[in-house]
């Protein structure tokens, strides 16, 4: 099984290993687009007051992405809804599930065709932004990532993180 990129660095690079130290049990989210790590933490509900053991690496050079962020969360595996949210702001991210320091499962996030109850429509006059008993629904275009509201058809193409519920 492919080991996580940062962990393969030479042992001499102590500082980097301390920054993103291996975890015993939990989830490593790798290949997050540079600059999106804090939004990923927001999706996971991890704020400044968290007691969770969390490592964050930002702007790590990456051949594929130019620069990438990495988030490691000890003692937690993600729910599908969280993965769906992450896929919207980090469509290249990979999820590594770690047990006893070993990667036991690794997969790339996959944008769903439709996403419900995750993003708030940016059109203030949309029926989904009222007291009606309706949850937001968006059809997802994958490349480039664009969300089209099922109700009012407004498109969100930039700053998706700002519209996450």
């Amino acid at each position, binding site marked *: 099984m492919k080991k996580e990129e940062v962990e393969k660095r030479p042992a001499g690079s102590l500082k980097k290993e301390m920054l993103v130290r291996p975890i015993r049990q939990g989830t490593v989210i790798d290949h997050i687009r540079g600059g999106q790590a804090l939004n990923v933490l927001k999706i996971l509900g991890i704020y400044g007051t968290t007691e969770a053991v969390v490592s964050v690496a930002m702007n790590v050079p990456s051949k594929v992405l130019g620069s990438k962020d990495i988030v490691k969360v000890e003692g937690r595996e993600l729910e599908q809804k969280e993965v769906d949210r992450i896929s919207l702001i980090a469509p290249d991210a990979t999820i590594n599930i770690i047990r006893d320091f070993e990667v036991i499962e690794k997969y790339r996030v996959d944008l769903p065709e439709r996403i419900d109850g995750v993003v708030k429509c940016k059109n203030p*006059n949309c*029926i989904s932004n009222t007291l009606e008993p*309706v949850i937001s629904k968006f059809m997802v275009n994958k490349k480039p990532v664009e969300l089209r509201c*099922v*109700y*009012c058809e*407004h498109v969100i193409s930039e700053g998706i993180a700002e519209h996450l519920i």
Partner: protein
Amino acid sequence: MSRHIISMKDFSRDEIDFILNRAREFEPIARGNTSSLLSGKILATLFYEPSTRTRLSFETAMKRLGGDVIDLGSVESSSVAKGETLADTIRVIGNYADAIVLRHPREGAARMAAEYSKVPIINAGDGAGHHPTQTLLDLYTIMRESSLSDMKIALVGDLKYGRTVHSLAYALSLYHADMTLISPKQLQMPDVIKKDLKKQGARISETTDIEDVIGDIDVLYVTRIQKERFPDPAEYQKVAGIYRVTEELLGKARDNLIIMHPMPRVDEIDPSVDRTKYARYFQQSFYGVPVRMTLLAMAMEAI
């Protein structure tokens, strides 16, 4: 077939042709011949914002086909004023009526209503969103008064906020129409929509001046620049009254030109144009009746 009628994008070209051809058959009834096609059926009209023309046209269509109409009345005097949600209203009215015509100020309202309704919802306008029955009657007018094939049409006015024009342009693209978009720079059709239209096979050009194309088009479709759609009143003032179709302008028009307008007009078309052979906007409003008859009959599975 029974179905909701929410957006033009839900219709294929074949389905549109079917509707237009059936509307032709309903025209004598729209002119006064009697019919009992929808006898015993009840249509509910729910207008959360005023639209006399559309409501009366639906009522006329239903009654000419022998059906009955119940009306929510003004929003201020109904359950809506007590804070009832649209979702609840739809579920209640669906117990009384065989179909519901809905006009609502919020975009996407008809789509949501369809999720809650056990009877067909016909969208009669959702905010700045869709108004498919208007688009279908526009197409029908072109079919009856001009031609839908090899047609050159100019769309004039607010092409940015006027989303019913977007629906019409989308439908015209299914007929590979040659479209000229005429608007002031700040009211041009959004790029994302133009891209969609071109993908559908439309030929599109743009200008700011009607005179540039008046001698070269079959249909001049004029729209009102709607003050209520402007986020900034100062922006509205800059473009209000910018286009005015006059007899003089029409001096260079083709003989077979037709002029359309969804109405109501303000000052976009000079009243003197009404007397010319080009004016078709009053016929256009009549054609709303046979087209809506067809849609009602479809929704209630009578055809």
